[in-house]
C-alpha cells in the first residue's frame, strides 16, 4: 500500500516536472484567416471638418470595417484561445495603449486581458472624446483636451467593445477584452501564431468586426504547432 502511494507520488512529480518543462516551449497554433466572396467597398473618410487632422492625410484614409490583404487575407481578426487557456485569471502587468492620432484610432483593434491597464493617448491638436460602447462592462466616455496626459482605464469582464469618438463620427475601433493573453491580431498576411500552449484540448475563436465569429477545437500534443485556418464569408452590403 505505501509503496503504491510512493510510486504514485513519484509519477506525479515526474509528470508535473515534465509539464513544467513542456510549458515555456510547448506547442502552439498558427494559421491564416482569409475570406471568400466580395467584401463591401471601404469608403474614403473626408475629415474636412477637422482641418488639423485632414492635413495629416493627403490621401484620405478609408473606413476599416473590412481590411483585406493580398490573396484574400483578412486583417484585424482577433484570434484567441477561448477555452482551456492556461493563464485565465492572471492579468499582465504592462499596459496596452490606444492612440488617437490624425483622428484615427491606432491600432484599430486593441486586444487586452480582463483588468489589464489600458492607456488612452491623445496625440492630436483637437479634443477627442473616446466612448467605448460597452454592453457588459461599464459604459463610459471621456474627453481629452489636446496636450493633456494619457489616462488609464480597465475592463473587468470579457467583451468585444465597439469604440467610437463622440466628437468625430468617423473614428471607430474595437477593444477586445479577453480572458487570456493567448491572442493575436492578423495583419496584412492574414497570419497568426498562438505559441506557448501546453499539450491539451483548446478552443480557438476568430472574431472579425463585420463577419462575426468562428470557432474550432484543437488538441495539442507535446510541442507540435497545429495549423488552423479560418475562412469568412464576405458580404457585399
Amino acid at each position, binding site marked *: 500500500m505505501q509503496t503504491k502511494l510512493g510510486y504514485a507520488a513519484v509519477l506525479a512529480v515526474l509528470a508535473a516536472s515534465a509539464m513544467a518543462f513542456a510549458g515555456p516551449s510547448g506547442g502552439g497554433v498558427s494559421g491564416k484567416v482569409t475570406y471568400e466572396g466580395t467584401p463591401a467597398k471601404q469608403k474614403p473618410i*473626408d475629415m474636412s471638418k477637422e482641418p488639423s487632422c485632414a492635413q495629416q492625410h493627403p490621401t484620405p484614409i478609408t473606413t476599416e470595417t473590412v481590411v483585406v490583404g493580398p490573396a484574400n487575407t483578412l486583417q484585424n481578426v482577433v484570434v484567441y484561445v477561448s477555452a482551456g487557456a492556461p493563464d485565465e485569471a492572471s492579468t499582465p502587468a504592462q499596459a496596452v495603449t490606444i492612440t488617437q492620432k490624425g483622428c484615427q484610432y491606432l491600432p484599430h483593434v486593441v486586444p487586452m486581458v480582463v483588468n489589464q491597464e489600458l492607456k488612452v493617448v491623445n496625440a492630436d491638436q483637437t479634443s477627442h472624446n473616446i466612448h467605448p460602447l460597452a454592453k457588459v462592462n461599464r459604459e463610459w466616455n471621456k474627453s481629452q483636451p489636446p496636450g493633456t496626459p494619457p489616462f488609464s482605464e480597465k475592463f473587468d469582464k470579457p467583451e468585444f467593445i465597439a469604440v467610437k469618438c463622440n*466628437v*468625430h463620427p468617423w473614428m471607430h475601433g474595437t477593444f477586445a477584452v479577453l480572458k487570456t493573453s493567448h491572442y493575436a491580431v492578423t495583419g496584412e498576411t492574414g497570419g497568426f501564431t498562438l505559441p506557448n500552449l501546453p499539450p491539451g484540448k483548446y478552443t480557438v475563436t476568430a472574431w472579425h468586426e463585420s463577419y462575426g465569429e468562428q470557432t474550432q477545437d484543437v488538441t495539442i500534443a507535446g510541442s507540435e504547432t497545429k495549423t488552423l485556418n479560418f475562412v469568412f464569408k464576405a458580404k457585399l*452590403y
Partner: protein
Amino acid sequence: MGKIFAVTIIVIAIASAIPVVMHTWEAPADVSTHGHLIDEQMSETMLEAGVSFLAAQIILAIFIWQFSNRGAEAKIKTFPGGAMGLVIAALVLVGAEVLALGVFGVKAWADVYLTAPSANAMPVQVQAGQFAFYFRYPGPDGKFGALHPELINEATQNLFGLDPEHDPDSRDDIVTAEMAVPVNKEIHLLMHAKDVGHSFFVRELRVQQDFVPGLDVSLHFTATKVGRYEIVCTQLCGLGHYNMKAYLDVLSEQDFNDWLKKEAAMQ
C-alpha cells in the same frame, strides 16, 4: 461726481458707437440673392437704434450734469409738456419706427421663408447629427433613396441609413462630408436631424435654420459668388457643438460637376 458721471456716460456712448461706425466687426459680404434685403433692414435698424441709443444716453448725461448736486435752495422745475408730451412723442416716433421696421421687414423674411423653391431648384439633403453635417446628392437617377435610421452605421460610413442591397434608388446616392453647390443655381436644401436639435448657419449666405428632430425642414437659396464658406451649428447639441461644422464650396458649374463625379467614385 454727477458731472464726472455725465461725462463718463457720453464717453462710453461714443466709444460704443465707434466700432459700429467704422465697421470694425461685421458680417462678411453677402453672397446670396436674398441677403441684400436683410442687410438693408440691418442698416436701417442700426441707424434708428444708434440714434436712439446716442440720444438717450446724451440727454441722460446732460440732465445729470445740469441737475446733480444743485443744493437745497435750487428750484424744482418740470419739463414742458409733462408726461403726456413724452407719451405722444414715444407713440409717434417709436410707433412709426416699429411699424416701418416691421412692415418693411416682412419682405426680407418672406423672401426666405414664405416663398416656395422654384421647380428647377437643385435638391441637396443635409443631415445634422452629433457632431457633423453630412450631405446627400440624389445621383444620376435624380431620386433620393429611402432613409432607414435603424441602418445607420458610422463605422461603415452608412451615415444616412441607406439600404443599397434592397433599394435601387439609393445605390447611386452620393454622400459627402462637404457641401458643394454650383454658383447662381437655386438650391433646395432638405434638412433633417439624426438625433437632437442642430442648426444650419452660413453667414455669407444669410441663412440660418434649425433642424427639428421629427420634422423635415427645408430652405432655398442661391449663392452668387464662388468661394469656400463655413457652415456652423448654432443650436446647442452636446459636448461637440463647438466643433460641428462643414465647408460649403460654391463652384463654377464645371467644377461642381467634376467634384460630384469625384465624390460619386468614392461611394
